[in-house]
Every structure is written in structure tokens, then in C-alpha cells.
């Protein structure tokens, strides 16, 4: 058993980390911090956890020493506190965007100037399908963004076939914007939306470029769903690339992966990846369509933004780091119908 703590446990990502870690056979959750809700019960923030824990959110200052700490919120506002919290554990998993980009100038372009730019480039990316070898010994892990994860897993095996820039159209449910209240999160403003909130240059495009070497342009749209991410990636392939080539490349990359499934089927209601059936699961489904005549390739990726797009990836990375079965604590297969 190891002792784990969550910084920022009152948010949606924090809640999903709690759900997964409370069900993990090798992990004891010893603390969840929340500056806003210190002293309040964890199951008050996350009612699905009633009966599973009597934990109470603590102030960040009261974080105990433990084996692993998970940052579920950004520490950029208070770098000194972030450093103090990180020093409480040997293993640090950062689920915020704080450490995702390695280039300070690129970080500044998308997020503003980093208060401690020396930290950029020090973390191992927590994307098991790409970074497994490095994760076995990593003590500081940066979990990639939700839409970035879907885009990277969809595109990366196909990089050698792609000829030209990739246009990524990301769609995301409202939980992607966090648990804080605000006018933009009123039900009246959120319901029924197809809101193009990032028409050009969404932040996750930098992560997809960084991981694939491709030129990526990204648009993001908020849709009328609580959870779920789907990315549509449009590009051109080199002359002569066939559907069989693409399937072969996907098979080589993912045949042995526990949480990536290739979904490009000819029949049924779910022919291409769709987040609806992935909610609560750690799966990322990837699929594609190819028009060999025009060389047009569409890559589709889908996942639950809070699980494979965040907390599940972090737990899978922890499992790899500890040498455990990667599937520990991540067995939930999703629901159908839902």
C-alpha cells in the first residue's frame, strides 16, 4: 500500500481521482486539500463517494508527508506553495497544464508567462502509450490535456503517412471547464450549446504538435454534454497510403494496449469513436476514415475528459511507476445504454 494525497480535491478532476484511488487496491487516500472547502466532507463535494470515505478536505498547508501527491489544480498562482506541497511526496503527478509544455515561449503564448520557467521540461509526460518506458522511473509526471490526449493517440501512429498540416476540431463537455461557478456556467447559458469557445489556436494544439511533430491547428467547441471529448483531425496522406496501411499502423501501436481501442467499423450505431459509451472509463477509442482518391484522412479520437483525459491517465501512470498491473483501479468499462 502507498499513501496518496490530492491537492485541489474539490474540483471535478479531483473528484475523479478520489473515485479511482478509493477503489484502488494498493492505494490509501490520506488527504484531499481544498483552500475553499477545508474542513468540509469530501462526499459533500462528490456525493457519488458517500459511504466510501469519511475524509474531510484539509487546508493545503496541512498536507501530510505521503508517497504520491496529485495536483488536480494549477499551482501557478503560488509557486512557493506548490514547491512546498510537491516536497511532501517522492512522486508527483501534475494534472494541471502547469508543466505540459517544455518551451517557455510557447507556454507564455498559450497560458501567460510561467512564474517558474525552470520547471518546464523537468516532468515526464504521463501518456502511458507513448511514455511508458520513461514513466517507470519518473518522479515528476505531467498528465496531458484531455483533447490533446485524444488527438495524440489518434494521430501519433500515423505520423509517417501524414503530408501537411492537421486541423483538429475538438468537442468537449462542460466539465472540461471545471467546477467553479460563474456566469458562463449558468445552466441557462450552458444548455443546448454548440459554442465555439476557441475558434483558432486552442492551447492543446501545442501539446499535440509537441508530441507528434505535426503542424496542428485547433478549434474547440463546447457541446451540450457534461462529460466527454471527441476530436476530429483532418489532414492529407501521402500518395499511395491505403486503409490497410493505416489499420496496420494502429494495430502495431495499440494491439497490446489495455486502454486504446481502434474503432473504425462498417456496421452498427457506433462505427467511429464516441464519448457516450466511454464515460467513467479509462478507454480512449481512436478511428479513421480515408478517401484514397483525394488522400483525405479523418482521424477521430474520443475519451472521458475527466478519466483518460486526466485522472485515469494519472492512475495508469502511477501503476506503471510502481510496477503494478496497469489496469489496477481502472477496470470500469463504461455504460451502455447511458
Amino acid at each position, binding site marked *: 500500500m502507498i499513501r496518496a494525497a490530492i491537492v485541489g480535491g474539490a474540483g471535478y478532476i479531483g473528484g475523479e481521482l478520489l473515485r479511482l484511488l478509493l477503489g484502488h487496491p494498493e492505494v490509501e487516500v490520506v488527504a484531499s486539500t481544498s483552500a475553499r472547502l477545508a474542513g468540509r466532507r469530501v462526499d459533500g463535494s462528490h456525493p457519488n463517494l458517500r459511504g466510501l470515505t469519511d475524509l474531510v478536505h484539509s487546508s493545503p498547508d496541512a498536507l501530510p508527508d505521503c508517497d504520491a501527491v496529485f495536483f488536480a489544480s494549477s499551482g501557478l498562482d503560488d509557486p512557493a506553495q506548490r514547491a512546498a506541497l510537491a516536497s511532501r511526496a517522492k512522486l508527483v503527478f501534475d494534472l494541471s497544464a502547469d508543466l505540459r509544455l517544455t518551451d517557455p515561449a510557447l507556454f507564455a503564448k498559450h497560458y501567460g508567462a510561467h512564474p517558474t520557467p525552470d520547471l518546464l521540461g523537468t516532468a515526464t509526460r504521463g501518456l502511458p502509450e507513448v511514455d511508458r518506458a520513461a514513466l517507470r522511473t519518473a518522479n515528476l509526471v505531467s498528465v496531458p490535456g484531455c483533447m490533446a490526449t485524444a488527438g495524440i493517440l489518434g494521430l501519433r501512429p500515423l505520423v509517417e503517412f501524414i503530408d501537411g498540416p492537421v486541423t483538429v476540431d475538438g468537442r468537449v463537455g462542460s466539465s472540461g471547464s471545471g467546477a467553479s461557478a460563474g456566469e458562463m456556467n449558468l445552466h441557462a447559458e450552458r444548455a443546448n450549446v454548440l459554442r465555439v469557445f476557441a475558434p483558432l489556436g486552442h492551447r492543446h494544439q501545442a501539446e499535440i504538435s509537441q508530441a507528434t511533430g505535426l503542424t496542428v491547428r485547433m478549434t474547440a467547441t463546447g457541446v451540450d454534454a457534461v462529460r466527454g471529448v471527441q476530436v476530429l483531425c483532418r489532414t492529407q496522406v501521402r500518395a499511395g497510403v491505403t486503409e490497410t496501411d493505416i489499420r496496420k499502423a494502429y494495430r502495431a501501436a495499440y494491439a497490446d494496449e489495455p486502454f486504446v481501442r481502434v474503432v473504425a467499423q462498417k*456496421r452498427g450505431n457506433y462505427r467511429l469513436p464516441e464519448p457516450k459509451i466511454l464515460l467513467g472509463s479509462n478507454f480512449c477509442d481512436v478511428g479513421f476514415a480515408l478517401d484514397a482518391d483525394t488522400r483525405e484522412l479523418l482521424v477521430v479520437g474520443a475519451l472521458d475528459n475527466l478519466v483518460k483525459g486526466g485522472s485515469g491517465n494519472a492512475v495508469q501512470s502511477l501503476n506503471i511507476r510502481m510496477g503494478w498491473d496497469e489496469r489496477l483501479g481502472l477496470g470500469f468499462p463504461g455504460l451502455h445504454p447511458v
Partner: protein
Amino acid sequence: MSVQSCPECAADVAFAAPPELNEIIECGECAGELEVVSVDPLIIAVAPEAEEDWGE
């Protein structure tokens, strides 16, 4: 058990029992319906599928 390559996606398609003429099997990868059009030699072909259109 005999194994054939799916004509649609090239995944392995395994027959538990000896295949019969006109038998329909489903590819596990692309979910295409495949028909046994010849037993000796064993040949499988793709059966036609219906398309969807939500944008009418």
C-alpha cells in the same frame, strides 16, 4: 481452425468450425459482414452495408 485475412481491413478472421459456403461471419475489427463465397479454396468477400445520413 482456419484463419483468413478480412478483405476489408486485413485483420485476421478465425473460423472456429470448418467454414460453409455462404456462411456469414463478422470481422472483429471492422465489424464488416463477410460471406464465404468459396470453400475450396477458401475465399471470403465483403457483404454490402447500409449507410447512415443524419444530415437530411
